[in-house]
């Protein structure tokens, strides 16, 4: 507990210590296995009920084909969707959508932290910029789609722009709020050790706001993910959103449910990736879930 007790010769004998460590490790593994089981079990039950319901005819297989049906469909169509030359492999669609959302989030995060901090540095700046940001923040990202298509055409830039607008304004406001809630003791400590105002911004306020803004980013990721899918459905006609829209156009429920599952799983994986980034880069405040 105290520094001078480290390396103390008192304590359990080496053999006992090893046995205790092994017991602790076994307990950890057991807890781990229990957690994984608790995570997977509800899915297994849900899928089993779905399959059972479909097999017994409780639910309409033409509207809600079970996983066994739409997965078979995916395998039979060689993991491609669409017709002829426009057919696109599903992995390509996943990567296209994931790239758009990650690129938009990254740009939005960097720009929002920069704007939030620069604006917080002067009262005039806040007075000039914040009302505009607060006016633009409530606009749903989907509302930008028509304008974005006119500005950037049908393509990558439009999708990234939609994600960007979906997070940028909110994250700017959240950066400003985070700046205001930085512990004044940290700022005073930096000043007492001779940090200039610029150094305080760079070495104290900037790192101090990152965890809070990143948490907001994670929360807003879901909205951004939905926005990208919506953009793909209405305008872009590619990526994961296209799978759904194609399913609707040809009235293929297999395609729709396949699309829904892939969208959910991909979103979950990207969110897990964000948690991983947070743990690696913002370790002092990382969430455990």
């Amino acid at each position, binding site marked *: *507990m*105290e*520094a*001078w007790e*480290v*390396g103390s010769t008192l304590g359990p004998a080496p053999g006992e210590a090893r046995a205790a460590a092994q017991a602790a490790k076994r307990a950890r593994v057991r807890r781990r296995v229990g957690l994984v089981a608790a995570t997977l079990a509800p899915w297994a039950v849900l899928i089993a009920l779905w399959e059972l319901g479909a097999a017994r005819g409780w639910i309409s297989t033409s509207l809600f084909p079970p996983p066994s049906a739409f997965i078979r469909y995916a395998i039979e169509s060689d993991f491609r969707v669409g017709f002829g030359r426009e057919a696109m492999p599903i992995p390509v669609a996943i990567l296209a959508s994931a790239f758009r959302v990650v690129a938009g989030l990254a740009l939005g995060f960097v720009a929002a932290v920069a704007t939030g901090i620069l604006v917080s540095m002067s009262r005039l700046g806040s007075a000039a910029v914040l009302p505009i940001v607060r006016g633009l923040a409530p606009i749903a990202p989907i509302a930008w789609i028509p304008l974005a298509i006119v500005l950037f055409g049908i393509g990558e830039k439009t999708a990234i722009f939609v994600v960007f607008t979906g997070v940028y304004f909110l994250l700017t406001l959240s950066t400003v709020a985070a700046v205001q809630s930085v*512990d004044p*003791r*940290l700022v*005073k*400590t*930096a*000043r*007492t*050790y*001779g*940090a*200039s105002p610029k*150094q305080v911004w760079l*070495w*104290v306020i900037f*790192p*101090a706001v990152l965890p809070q803004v990143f948490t907001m980013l994670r929360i807003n990721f879901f909205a951004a993910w939905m926005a990208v899918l919506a953009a793909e459905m209405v305008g872009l006609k590619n990526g994961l959103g296209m799978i759904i829209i194609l399913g609707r156009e040809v009235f293929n429920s297999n395609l729709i449910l396949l699309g829904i599952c892939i969208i959910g799983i991909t979103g979950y994986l990207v969110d897990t990736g964000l948690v991983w980034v947070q743990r690696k880069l*913002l*370790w*002092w*405040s990382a969430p455990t879930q």
Partner: protein
Amino acid sequence: MSSLVCHLVGKRWQAPQGLAVEALRDVSLSVSSGEFVAILGPSGCGKSTLLELIAGLEPASRGEILIDGERVTGPNPKAVMVFQEHSLFPWLSVTDNVAFGLKMKGVAPDERRARVREVLRRVRLEPFAHHYPHQLSGGMKQRVAIARALVGNPEFILMDEPFAALDFQTRVLMQQFLLEVWRDFSSTILFVTHQIDEAILLSDRVVVMSAGPGRVLEEIAIDLPRPRSYTSSGFNDYRVRLTAHMEREVMRAQPEALAA
């Protein structure tokens, strides 16, 4: 010989509603090198404000503060402040926290590392050099905060109730630790506390302050041999005397506190 002199220092805070609050009035105080001075007073007596003025974090409204004859106009490497818990930068390791001041001053990385290692060795924090604050107990955190102050060789270390958030056991250990540091580094320490026992245990001299506005009531030299303990003979005489003072102050401040 370095010296710290406060001459008729006053501080008014401008409250948002336009009311001014007088935090300090006519505070005069002098500290010479090697001394351990405790500032004792009820909460709200402006003792923390006094330290912030001395550290140059806030300007005084009246009077002047001189360090080695030079007027304090801003943060000054000669007098650094150690706050209560939670003043370590959570994103920096123990080493980087301690190196913070040197980095701000532009000390070269090699020299920085060497000086940090030396201080960590002297305060027995070496095994924790690569730990992060969230991995440390409250007492360890404060030890790092003290190491961070020591590494710049300040003439005065200003401590604002550094052990107030710790439990009794840890506080006793930290008080011993601070006394060792004071002796080993020949530092000069100005220590704000509201605990009478802590003031008697640690200091050469106790400056008793009153509340609303903060003024210096009395200075009492603690003439007890070191090492001291709460049960040393003579300790109780000081305790009685200071408790009487504090009681009077609390009773005097009470009507105002209730009215506020």
